[in-house]
């Protein structure tokens, strides 16, 4: 090329579109004078400024909903900062809520750009789990997914398609509403994760017919004695832990009860460390102490509980209207219960009873009263009464309880719990003297097979001391918003037609869990669990959505293949058997890894939503700081795209509408209309419209536009003047407060806080009152395996962040008592193999004297992708198939399947395993 040719070539080439049409630049401001540049330091002469500061938070279910400012420049989120603009306090004498935040949230501006992000729709091109992907367009993915959806729906019914959700959506109300609406329209099965992750407080429900009893965190400050039981707020409630310590310095006894020495125990007034799985024995021995001391609140338990109710001594069943010769034939008196009135010395119908048992008549309960008036129910005694069966002896629940509690005296339980009787009595007396007392419980109590009985015992302690229904008292789980707004959105135009099933039973049915029970616990136990569950389904206590099989699974807002209890087995026998797996997620993890299609979902700062979290009196807004990265979309848009493809393909394939049998109701479903129905015929255009719908229709939410809310970031809700959700106009459930304050019947069979359950299955298993049951041990495997929420991650989110990993060991670790380690030749830092009859996983040994012998402790949430062989603790947990018979009982007032209220929990903690040295890593260790 000579000089002339060269010049001509260059002139032509640089004038071509290749050079002049920039691919990425929006525009270059030619009019703006160029700045001189001499060296890179020149770049730093101008002050760094932000284009915008938006309000945001992290839409994960850590219960924090911490108000953050998010700083944006050039379309990039650079940093975040705690907003700190809370308006003070719950009332005049409690600490305030701000600032709120933790290291995970303060790391998110970096994490959201990390390598784990899913940025584009991906299609699997290798075998499942091989990790080979190709990027595809949203159109291609949606079309292929839609075709499979329509095929399965036509061949097996929509119930053979699951649309699972999880903790990434549970507090993002608008996104969750979108999912609920599509599920309602299409009839897909939604395996609910509340029980699925073992978080459902079934024992609380058995007692008061309600699971949402939590108050704001300032309530801790109002308590006089807080038992922090199966909870570790110093680690798991970082923005709120200060309430405990401020309460302590204000004179409240903060007593931590946990087998391991937790960071919470470290700061508490007292630490009680029962052996793992013996908490019910400890609780009942405290009950015994209060009964023995006669320090119980008699007026409260006479009015609010079933303790004065009469029980037949011959059958152990409540004395009912149907037993009595006078009124037994009158249908209207179904479910009449009786007390013995000490003033008239007669059997008298208990006020507020006599309502129809099936269905629970909630409307009527609003107008009934449990006020005793002139009655004075006896708590103790035995009497003879005339019944249709002749004269029988009756006594009270309280009388039975006294004898039952005597079996759990502190002296008798010491050998079980390892706690000295003097400690038990000391704690029980402190608690009884406190007005009011509180039990701050984590969800760990739900993860034990017999955790329901622990919760019933906790509730009993609170009832005996008159603490439930008092500001600063009661049991503290998270409350939840009254369902008005979300359900109104889900059901608008179409009516309720949703299939929601417990993930526990769904997994049992599809994961061959009976086989697991038989393998680990023997045929007798396996057959019994199975028979009771099948009877429950046969009798329609629980739904039978599983009967058409499970062929296609959507996983949205969750990492479902991570958290399943017996995860290895579930993955092999259920998950990987699916004909199509679609994972919708912001980050890579084990669930997307095994999926056929992976669809990118917007992360916390890339989307709008409205967050309800009862731990504070504020609604938190999630506003879009930047557009979703790559081709990510928010959950509303993802369902929008998929539903549009389903309807388009249904039209192209001429797929007709059909009638769908949902719980005996015939529901008309038309795939060609799914998309129009989802968008309310175009009236709902984006998640912001959903949010506005929620604002407009949810009680207790100040009525304003989303834009106004987004400017503030946080908005105080109505009826939040005191540190308890006791008002009728707040967004949160206040049922129990109403029962105590207004003397309305509880939503239980007896209309009272019900401690005696005379359902035949409870009597059969000796669970009519809460009792200690020995933890489930596997012979030959001595180590009780315990887990808890982590400091450096929320479930599996942020666990793989490299900076947060530097604050830990850089890899998953397991806490081991040095004596157990020494017995196996393990030193700190070694790699150990943990094993059970189900399988094995490998993990870093973290030796700690804070762990009891014969116990292992591991923070949960580590994704299998972070372990050798991609197996985490789900490879050794043997309990996923343990469906407790009493948790599938029905035909008994409030007992029977009730969505997000009564269902069997997936059991996580109640098993044993063992460990051995796998690899010597500690260079200083003697070999």
């Amino acid at each position, binding site marked *: *090329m000579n*000089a002339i040719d*060269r*010049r001509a*070539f*260059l*002139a032509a*080439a*640089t004038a071509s579109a*290749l*050079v002049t*049409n*920039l*691919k*990425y*630049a*929006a*525009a*270059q*401001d030619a009019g*703006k004078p*160029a*700045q*001189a*540049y*001499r*060296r*890179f330091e*020149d*770049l*730093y002469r*101008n002050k*760094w400024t932000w284009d915008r500061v938006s309000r945001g938070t992290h839409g994960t279910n850590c219960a924090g909903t911490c108000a953050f400012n998010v700083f944006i*420049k*050039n*379309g*990039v989120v*650079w940093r975040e900062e705690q907003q700190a603009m809370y308006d003070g306090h719950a009332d005049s004498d409690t600490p305030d809520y701000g600032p709120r935040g933790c290291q995970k949230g303060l790391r998110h501006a*970096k994490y959201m*750009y*990390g*390598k*784990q992000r899913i*940025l*584009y729709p*991906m299609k699997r*091109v290798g075998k499942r789990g091989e*990790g*080979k*992907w*190709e*990027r595809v*367009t949203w159109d291609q993915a949606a079309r292929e997914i839609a075709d499979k959806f329509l095929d399965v729906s036509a061949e097996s019914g929509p119930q053979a398609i699951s649309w699972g959700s999880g903790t990434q959506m549970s507090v993002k109300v608008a996104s969750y509403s979108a999912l609920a609406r599509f599920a309602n329209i299409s009839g897909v099965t939604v395996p609910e994760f509340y029980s699925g992750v073992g978080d459902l407080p079934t024992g609380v429900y058995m007692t008061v017919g309600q699971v949402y009893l939590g108050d704001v965190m300032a309530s801790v400050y109002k308590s006089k004695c807080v038992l922090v039981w199966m909870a570790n707020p110093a680690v798991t409630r970082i923005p709120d832990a200060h309430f405990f310590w401020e309460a302590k310095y204000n004179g409240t006894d903060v007593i931590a009860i946990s087998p391991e020495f937790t960071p919470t125990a470290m700061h508490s007034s007292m630490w009680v460390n029962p052996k793992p799985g013996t908490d019910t024995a400890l609780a009942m021995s405290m009950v015994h102490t209060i009964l023995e001391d006669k320090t119980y609140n008699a007026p409260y338990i006479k009015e609010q509980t079933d303790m004065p109710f009469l029980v037949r001594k011959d059958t152990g069943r409540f004395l009912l209207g149907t037993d009595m010769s006078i009124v037994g034939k009158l249908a209207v008196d179904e479910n009449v219960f009786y007390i013995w009135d000490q003033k008239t010395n007669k059997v008298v119908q208990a006020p507020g009873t006599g309502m129809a048992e099936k269905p629970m008549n909630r409307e009527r309960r609003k107008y009934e009263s449990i006020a005793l008036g002139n009655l004075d129910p006896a708590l103790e005694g035995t009497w003879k009464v005339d019944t249709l069966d002749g004269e029988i002896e009756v006594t009270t629940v309280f009388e039975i309880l006294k004898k039952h509690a005597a079996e759990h005296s502190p002296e008798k339980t010491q050998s079980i719990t390892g706690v000295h009787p003097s400690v038990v009595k000391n704690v029980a007396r402190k608690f009884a003297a406190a007005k009011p007392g509180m039990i701050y419980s984590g969800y760990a109590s739900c993860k034990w097979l017999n955790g329901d009985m622990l919760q019933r015992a906790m509730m009993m302690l609170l009832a005996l001391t008159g603490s439930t229904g008092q500001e600063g008292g009661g049991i503290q789980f998270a409350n939840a918003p009254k369902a008005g707004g979300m359900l109104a959105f889900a059901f608008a135009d179409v009516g309720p037609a949703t299939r929601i099933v417990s993930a526990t039973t769904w997994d049992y049915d599809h994961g061959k869990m009976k086989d697991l029970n038989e393998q680990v616990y023997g045929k007798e136990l396996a057959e019994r669990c199975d028979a009771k569950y099948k009877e429950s389904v046969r009798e329609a206590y629980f739904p039978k959505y599983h009967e058409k099989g499970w062929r296609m699974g959507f996983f949205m807002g969750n990492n479902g293949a991570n958290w399943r209890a017996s995860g290895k087995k579930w993955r092999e026998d259920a998950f990987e058997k699916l004909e199509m797996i679609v994972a919708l997620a912001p980050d*890579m993890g084990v669930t997307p*890894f095994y999926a056929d299609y992976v669809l990118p979902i917007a992360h916390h700062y890339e989307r709008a939503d409205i967050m309800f979290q009862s731990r504070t009196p504020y609604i938190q807004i999630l506003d879009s700081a*930047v*557009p979703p*990265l*790559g081709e990510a979309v928010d959950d509303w848009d993802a369902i929008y795209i998929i539903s549009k493809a389903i309807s388009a393909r249904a039209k192209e394939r001429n797929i007709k509408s059909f009638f769908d049998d949902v719980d005996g109701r015939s529901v008309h479903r038309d795939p060609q209309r799914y998309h129009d129905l989802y968008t309310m015929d175009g009236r709902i255009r984006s998640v912001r419209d959903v949010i506005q719908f929620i604002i407009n229709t949810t009680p207790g939410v100040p009525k304003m536009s989303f834009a106004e809310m987004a400017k503030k970031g946080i908005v105080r809700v109505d009826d939040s003047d005191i540190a308890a959700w006791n008002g009728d106009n707040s967004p949160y459930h206040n049922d129990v407060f109403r029962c105590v304050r207004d003397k309305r019947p509880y939503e239980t069979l007896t209309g009272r806080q019900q401690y005696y359950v005379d359902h035949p299955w409870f009597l059969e298993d000796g669970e009519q009152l809460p009792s200690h049951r020995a933890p489930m041990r596997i012979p030959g495997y001595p180590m009780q395996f315990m887990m808890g929420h982590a400091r450096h991650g929320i479930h599996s989110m942020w666990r793989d962040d490299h900076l947060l990993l530097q604050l830990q060991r850089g890899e998953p670790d397991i806490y081991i008592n040095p004596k157990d380690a020494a017995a196996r030749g393990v030193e700190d830092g070694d790699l150990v193999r943990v094993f059970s009859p189900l399988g094995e996983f490998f993990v870093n040994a973290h030796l700690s004297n804070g762990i009891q012998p014969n116990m292992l402790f591991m923070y949960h949430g580590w994704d299998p*992708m972070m372990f050798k062989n991609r197996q985490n603790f789900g490879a050794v947990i043997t309990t996923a198939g343990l469906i407790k018979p009493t948790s599938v009982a029905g035909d008994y007032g409030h007992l029977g399947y009730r969505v997000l209220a009564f269902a069997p929990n997936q059991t996580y903690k109640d098993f044993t395993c063992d460990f051995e040295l796998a690899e010597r890593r500690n260079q200083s260790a003697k070999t």
Partner: protein
Amino acid sequence: MAPGMANTSHAPVVLNPLTPIGLRDADSARARTLAYALFSNLLASPFDAKVSYALHDLVQQLADTTHVLPFTFDLSDVEDAAKAFDDADMGLIRRQYSGLFEVGSDGPPVPLRAELVRTNESVAKEEIIRFYEHFNYALNPSFQWAPDHLSILLEFVQTLAHQESAAADARALLSLQLAQRDFVARHIADWMPGVMDRLSRNAQQSSFFGAVVTALNRFIRADLAWQNQSLDASVEGAR
């Protein structure tokens, strides 16, 4: 050498005899503009509708450009890889590109975003933005989330070289030349070894796009060396 510049900046380079050293003129800027534009296009995502995917044409243009660059640059490995590559098969192009650069179980096998390769990601990203602002380079909103993507970094250098080719006065010219050298050294050359390391561990290293990245790595080293040699004398005087 400015602090933080890559060690490769003074690597031996064979100058193209058509462009004597010191003769850093409009033609050398045009040639480099073209080369950066072509590499930017070759490494743009084929899912981006704004990009031309006549890859053989791009390779041919790049091969032609090697003859006018002010230093010798061999593109034969890319040309060889292109021979076996059907650029009419958009599916193949997309699969190969996305499988290497965009998607994967632990992030893409060979990330093209600097922050996924280098360690001091936030500081580096901030400086990239400062460079862009200094020279009025504003990204389209849909690409703003990834200002450190290799293809975008190359396009930015392309715009600087293009401005250099039309610069009217000596001060502006010098600004643009210094900025190119620093930007290439501090924000491309410094993490290319990481990209090459990941590529060497990937089965697709000999694929078409693997060959493009390998060629780019050589090109960046050669260009940076030439920039240093062509600037050293005059720049020190100007400073």
